[in-house]
Structures are given as C-alpha cells and as structure tokens.
C-alpha cells in the first residue's frame, strides 16, 4: 500500500494535520488529524509497503504487542484505502 500524492502534512498547534492539495482536493474536502501512531504510519506508507512491513515497523518503533499493532495497521490501511487516500 502507498499513500497517494496530493497531501501536505504539518504540525499545527501540536497536532499532526493532513490536508489535500491539487487534484486530491477535488475529491476530498477537509482535514485529517493524526495521532502519534497515525503520523508514524502516514510517513511509513508514503513509500510503498505491505501491511506486514507496517506491523514490523510499528513494533520496532513502539513497545506494542504484535497482535495489537496488526490490528492498528490493518484499520489504518482500511480507512486509507476506503477513502481513496492510498492505493494497493
């Protein structure tokens, strides 16, 4: 999975904020607010990686059980794919 082009990510008021730009802004209006894990995964999936690679990366970065991490990464991937923010 890889996050599509057309987003800018910035820290605003201590929050990680994502907004669409260019062509992406025509299909998606609004903003995404990422928590720390979301921010980490957003950066990770800005390059093409599998969900399993995401799980490994998350476990390496944070003290988290693999089953919990897999759940989180799968949910993150589902949301991104469903909304058209990422492609397989």
């Amino acid at each position, binding site marked *: 999975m890889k996050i599509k082009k057309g987003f*800018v990510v910035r820290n*605003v008021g201590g929050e990680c*904020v994502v*907004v669409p730009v*260019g062509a992406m802004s025509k299909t998606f209006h609004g903003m995404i607010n990422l928590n720390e894990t979301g921010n980490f995964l957003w950066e990770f999936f800005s390059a093409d990686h599998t969900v399993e690679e995401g799980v490994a990366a998350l476990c390496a970065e944070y003290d988290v059980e693999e089953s919990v991490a897999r759940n989180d990464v799968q949910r993150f991937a589902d949301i991104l794919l469903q909304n058209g923010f990422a492609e397989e």
Partner: protein
Amino acid sequence: MIYEIADLRVFLDNRYPFTTKFCKAYEAEDQSVPAQITASVLPEELEEERTLSPGFSDGYIENICLYRSLCLQIPAFDRMLMHAAILEYDGSGYAFLGKSGTGKSTHTGLWLQYLGGRIVNGDKPILSFSDREVYAYGTPWMGKEGRGCKAKTPLKALCFLEQAKENKIRRLSASETTSRLFNQLLIPTEEQAAIKTLELADALIQRIPAYLLSCDISEEAVKTSYEALTGKEYKPKGENL
C-alpha cells in the same frame, strides 16, 4: 483598478461594475505603482459560484469569487483569511469565531452597546503576521451586515462562541484550538499556499490565546468575555461618565 487591501496592492480584474463600487473606499491613490497580486475569476468559477448562490447578480457573484481569488494568493505574503468578527477595544483586537448562527454579531453588538469599541471586520478579516504582531484587517468584504472599517488592529485573543444558558469562559488548549480553528480558515488547494496557511495557523495558535465562551445574550455575557480576554475588571461605559 488597484486597491490597497490588508497592506497589499491588489489589482481586481472585475468585468462587472459591482466590485468597483463595493471597493471604492479601498482604491489606491497612486494607480501607477504596480500591484503585488492580481485577483481574477475564470468563467467556470463564476458558473460554480452561481449554482451555490442562486438569485444573486453576476456582479455580486463575481465579487465573491474575486475575494476568494485574492485570499488564495495572500499566504505568500504571510496573510490568510479567517472567518470571524473582529472587534477593537482600547487599541486591541479580539476575534469572535463560531459557526454561522452562534451569535458573533449578537455578542459583539452587546459588547459595543455596554463597553464601546468598534467592529473592524464583521465576518471575513485578513490576518497578517509580522515578527511583533498579528494584525486583523478591515476589508471591503465584511459580511451581510456590512459591519467594519478600513483599519487594522493588533489581535490579542481568539474567542470561540457557543450558545448556553449559563455564562462561562475557559482557555482552550492548542489542540482544542486547532480543530475549532480549521473550520474557520480558507485552506488553499495549491501546495505552497496550503503549506504556508498551515504554518500561519500554527503561528496563530502559538502566539494568540484562545478561549471558549459559552454565553447567552445578557450583559453578563459581555462581562464574562471582557474580563477573560482583557484581564481587566469590567466597567461598562455608563459608569465612567
């Protein structure tokens, strides 16, 4: 025609006379100095706005689109549009924010009634960021009620409004402010302008304290916001006479 809006020289490329009259007070005295920004409207933008605002004249529609065109270009000049009512009191600017219908006009109206001051922009101020101050500007675009003046004021606080039966106010954390503020900003879709707007929004949140005012339409509502925003004791203007 070139205008001076938010300390920028702006060429408004209008085809209908509506805007010329609408912006009359902001005409630049010296038309020979080049503009920093040209605001113009494409036919398809006009068409899109026409479907959003049915029943309005072409000149009015074009006028809305011109402000949008201008505001999408101002981030490069450390400026952005923020939907708010700006009230100036005692030389300081206070921004009142909230969804349409939460009572920005009513609350600022009560403030003027009990304390005085003036409205700099009732609806769509431009903010500028310098090292020392964040300024809010009066512009020709100031909402349906047309409350505002050709002036700028140093912004000292943001005050988000919500209607309530009891009057109370509290300071908002940076993250609380972020989510509330985003609904009131125009985020450009051009990448560099979008990045700049997010940076300016961050600067605004870091530099200007934000509050959440729950209020009714009584004098106590004014006392509540006044004392929190200014840090001073409430003295309505009648008592000073």
